[in-house]
């Protein structure tokens, strides 16, 4: 049986107060299991990114619980949340968010350094990760010299750095052409299955459904089955 790695229990997120109150997310319960790809779909403003931020321990829910690897993180302070993010999560962003002063390899090394890897291992591990996403030959290129697909591959290598069990990807194909987008999705699915990662993709692109093991829909902050 696939192992449950993350669970949200009836999480709500409310912005503002009084008459200006907006419920971005209402009673959303989601589970993530190892080796599977979960796709969260919905129109713009439906609360996808809010849910992803809560799942990634970046945003605190107004109500409800988030359980990561069996630990309820509701009582955690900012330092503990940072530590949980460092240990359990890898992030892939729509705008890639690579550090422009660093080469592709150094972008991966940043995470390994943050995770306290020994200096001897950092270089070899980063090179290995770039090789895994097919970017070994572009390891020393700066982001400005990489294509959109190469940037996203670098971002995936960075998300995999340090072997986190959960990968959260926000619109990973939005800035890519359709062929490159498909390659990136296959790469994510392949890693979910081969490396037993729990991958969550947020997208409003129906083509992403092809790689997902499970799809949930969000509309006006509510989950639709």
């Amino acid at each position, binding site marked *: 049986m696939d192992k449950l790695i993350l669970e949200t229990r009836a999480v709500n997120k409310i912005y503002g107060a009084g008459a200006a109150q907006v419920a971005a997310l209402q009673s959303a319960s989601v589970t993530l299991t190892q080796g599977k790809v979960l796709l969260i779909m919905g129109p713009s403003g439906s609360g996808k990114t809010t849910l992803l*931020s809560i799942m990634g321990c970046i945003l605190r829910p107004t109500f409800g619980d988030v359980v990561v690897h069996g630990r309820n993180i509701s009582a955690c302070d*900012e330092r503990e949340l*940072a530590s949980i993010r460092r240990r359990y*999560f890898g992030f892939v962003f729509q705008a890639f*968010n690579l550090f422009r*002063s660093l080469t592709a390899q150094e972008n991966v090394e940043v995470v390994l350094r943050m995770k306290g890897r020994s200096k001897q291992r950092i270089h070899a591990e980063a090179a290995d990760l770039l090789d895994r996403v097919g970017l070994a030959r572009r390891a020393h290129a700066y982001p400005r010299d990489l294509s959109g697909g190469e940037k996203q591959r670098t971002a995936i290598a960075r998300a995999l750095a340090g072997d986190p069990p959960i990968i959260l990807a926000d619109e990973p194909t939005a800035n890519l052409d359709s062929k490159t987008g498909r390659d990136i999705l296959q790469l994510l699915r392949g890693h979910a299955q081969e490396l037993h990662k729990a991958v969550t993709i947020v997208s409003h692109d129906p083509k992403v459904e092809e790689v997902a093991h499970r799809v949930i829909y969000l509309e006006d902050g509510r989950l639709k089955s």
Partner: protein
Amino acid sequence: MLWLAFRMLFQERGSLAITLVGIVFSTVLTLVEVGIYLGMMGNATSVVRHTDADIWVASKNVPNFDFMQPFPAYRINRVRALDEVLWAEKIHLWFSFLKLADGRREQIQMIGFNPDTGIGGPWAMAAGKPADVKGGHYIIMDQSSIQRLGKLELGSMWEINLFNKEQSFKLVGLSREALSFTTIPVVFTSYNEMDHSLMGSNFEGNTSFVVVKLKDPTKTDSVAQSLRAMLPNNDVYTRQEFIDRTVNYWTIQTGIGLAFFLTAILAVLIGGAIVGQTIYAGTIEHLRDYGTLKAMGAKNDDINLVILTQAAVSAVLGFAIGVLVTLASRHGIETAGVSMQLPLLLFAVVFAIIVATCLAAAYISVRKVKTLDPVMVFRE
């Protein structure tokens, strides 16, 4: 994280250059302004500092070394009568005029000292020796006067109007580092020669200062107190008191020192503003990077370390370049006749100020990062 701080700092050379310009500007202006101020104060007190005396007896209410008033020279006998006194010497200080070859007149500060002891005389010689002024109309001029007086050739004759008498003096030596606050050339001659010149004038039998050396310098304060009681018509200062009085006069009473300090403070503030602005702009530019780091699990302290390290490294680099620029321009400044003193303590203090200013500027950025919402990394 230090690695990331260095990589980000040195990869973005344009931002680094702007930051360094601000710090170098601040460093150079502060060092030069304070250095010139110290140089001026050094000149104003040079004779007092280089005269090996524990106590200075001057005319009543003398505000500084330069603005002396004559008083009866026989009062030295009361000083010498004290058991604690090892020796006491008289020093003349008068402003007079020196006639140049082209007919122009330049004001000079003439110091008369005892060539047998050298007390009150030149302390560093470029040519000749202090004792050479003994026994005639001989003078020692400071080589810093060349700019004002022209070529100073040993053996050349100079006409000096001393107490309304034109007298010829032979140049027998060149001193070094004897400058006055007012930049008026300093000329040394023998005390007795000046004393003779005073004969027949209203100031006959007067002197400018009596300097005192004690057998036991630890008793300076108590002996100075005794002398104040014995010489009610004179001011009696310990060496340090006279230096402080002179410095206070030029710094506070004339406002010259405050003007220099104000410029130095403005330099630090303007430099700090430039540095603060570039560091803050750099932080805003890297906000997404910092947000990404936070999302990936970096703590605020980690990111603060990046920002503060960059500010500190910029401060050290900018200060080092500023020091090099200051040292390189020092010769040019001094050749133009402006004295500069750059003690190691000044470098240490300016370094501390520059680093503190840069870190304070970076602190504004740190506060911005503290409130940074990592959710922003999901926005395009």
